[in-house]
């Protein structure tokens, strides 16, 4: 109803100004489309260039006049990279997958359990512990990297010697203040009646969490999982320091070479970006809501 009134009223009021108004509107609309299309081009061009350059011969990327269209060298590039034993691309891909998947599953589970405990139970020390988690949201990760390196390298008091291992990358970020915060928010919307009903049915506390609370949280869990997977998949600083071979650190290794293999770098970069693009196209809603929620930590 309100749509009808809002549409008719200005027309009645501005009867004489209709013509002028519509040309102005047309101009404004064209300008808006122009800006949006230019923005879309700038947004997409680096992706196009990356995929395009991954199909070029390695000396052709920076030749003049510049290459603008794909060529047929993609499999040659992949073959060359695969043969480079020092690079260890195969191991990098495997590590990236293993680390990202295990990290995501564990951190989502740990965050959900903690979030549930904060939201649905009253216990001594709850506010203090929650405050501790919350306080670290403000602390830059970089503060922890030197001590974490010393822990992983096997310094006191831990004798781990874990540099170069996947657990060195998985463990430090598992207790994510952001994940816990998000799950607490989400769990607090769970009706207490559901939990009480579960107790009356004779369910154990963990059973209630696992079979009643978690299934209801599915949208939040999906968004959190995507957010966590993406951040781990893209992570560069910590795997670099922990000396773990992942796809981003392979990008780093290639770009630090004295003679740079340009199409090789773009091939590995495509490999790094493509899976996320696919997940994004399939689950755009979860991706964006994860980012919106993730904006708590940035």
């Amino acid at each position, binding site marked *: 109803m309100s749509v009808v009134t*809002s549409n008719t009223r200005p027309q009645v009021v501005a009867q004489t100004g209709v013509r002028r108004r519509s040309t102005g509107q047309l101009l404004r*609309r064209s300008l*808006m489309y122009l*800006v*949006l299309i230019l923005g*879309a081009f700038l*947004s997409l061009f*680096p992706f196009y260039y990356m995929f395009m350059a991954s199909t070029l011969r390695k000396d052709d*990327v920076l*030749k*003049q006049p*510049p290459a*603008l269209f794909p060529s047929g060298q993609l499999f040659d590039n992949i073959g060359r990279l695969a043969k480079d034993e020092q690079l260890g691309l195969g191991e990098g891909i495997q590590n990236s997958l293993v680390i990202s998947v295990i990290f995501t599953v564990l951190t989502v589970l740990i965050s959900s*359990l*903690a979030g549930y*405990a904060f939201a649905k*139970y009253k216990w001594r020390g*709850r506010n203090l*512990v929650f405050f501790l*988690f919350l306080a*670290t949201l403000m*602390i*830059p*990760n*970089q*503060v*922890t990297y*030197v*001590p*974490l390196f010393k*822990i992983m390298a096997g310094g006191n008091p831990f004798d781990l010697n874990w540099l170069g291992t996947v657990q060195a990358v998985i*463990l*430090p970020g598992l*207790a994510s203040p952001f994940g816990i915060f998000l799950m607490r928010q989400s769990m607090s919307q769970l*009706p207490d009646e559901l939990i009480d009903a579960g*107790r009356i*049915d004779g*369910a*154990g*506390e*963990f*059973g209630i969490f696992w079979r*009643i609370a978690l299934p*209801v949280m599915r949208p939040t869990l999906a968004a959190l999982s995507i957010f966590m997977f993406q951040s781990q998949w*893209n*992570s*560069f*600083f910590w795997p670099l*320091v922990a000396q773990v071979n992942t796809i981003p650190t392979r*990008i*780093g290794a*290639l770009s630090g070479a004295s003679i740079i293999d*340009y199409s090789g*770098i773009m091939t590995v970069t495509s490999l*790094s970006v493509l899976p996320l*693009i696919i997940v994004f*196209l399939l689950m*755009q809603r979860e*991706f964006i809501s994860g980012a919106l929620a993730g*904006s708590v930590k940035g």
Partner: protein
Amino acid sequence: MQSVVSQPPEVRSRPGLRISPKLAPYVFVAPAFILFLIFMAYPIIYSFILSLQTNRDGEQVWHGIANYTRLLGDELFWKALFNTFIVLVIQVPIQLGLAMLLAVGLNSKILKGRGFFRAVYFLPAITGLAAASVIFRILFADPDGIVNSFLSIFSFGPVHWSLDEFWNRVLLILVITWRWTGYNMVIYLSGLQAIPTDLYEAAEVDGASKSTQFFRITLPLMRPIILFTTILSTIGTLQIFDESYLLTNGGPNNSTLTVGFYLYRTAFRQADFSYASTIAYGLLIFIAVLSFLQFKFAGNEEN
């Protein structure tokens, strides 16, 4: 929610695994808390202890606040902060302005292809910073990159993106803008969509122009979100590492050296863990102060 109520799931668990409701929260929070203590709380404290020590002949010895006085007089640290500050002052307003422009455009009811544009603008935000950095490094290669080829059409350049301090900073700003504008746009768009449309309808009836509507309705209502994205961008900018390491390698004459990269070089190239920890705490203090000032500034204007 209804599906849960209508078909109560099988929730009976084995008696052996039963935890009492009193004990349950402690058990549930334990994994997170133990990991937190080892990998978060302990490093934060350990880092502070390190910053008060120094390494003498392979032995950590107490050094008082000497590292902090060194930090105050460390030109490279100040240069790194200054570089970050330049990015903050120039890039953050550009990025947030662009994000707002695009969000307002996309929020328009008459626009076709809204979902398409939103997805396209968000796409850079899924890219890893390492990936974005090397893509831009090749796009902006000096002198033969495609951007220089494009500029040469207008008889401009070649621009020495990696040799000239000014253009090196421009390059850093460009990659950050590309990576984050769509992300902020999505945040703004969700804020804009929460503004009730009858506010604009009423303004329309009162004869308010589109720009008046923007400045009198949209901006004031979006204030908290704008503050929020400003703080996020500030914290994010102060922590830049990947771009400095992979795109500019600190830049000519350290023009795009960031605090994060300086910390990395100190810790992992010079193995000076104590001083690196001091740099980390210096960064921590700056982030705390800036966030506080932004909150305070925004809070005061509110009154």
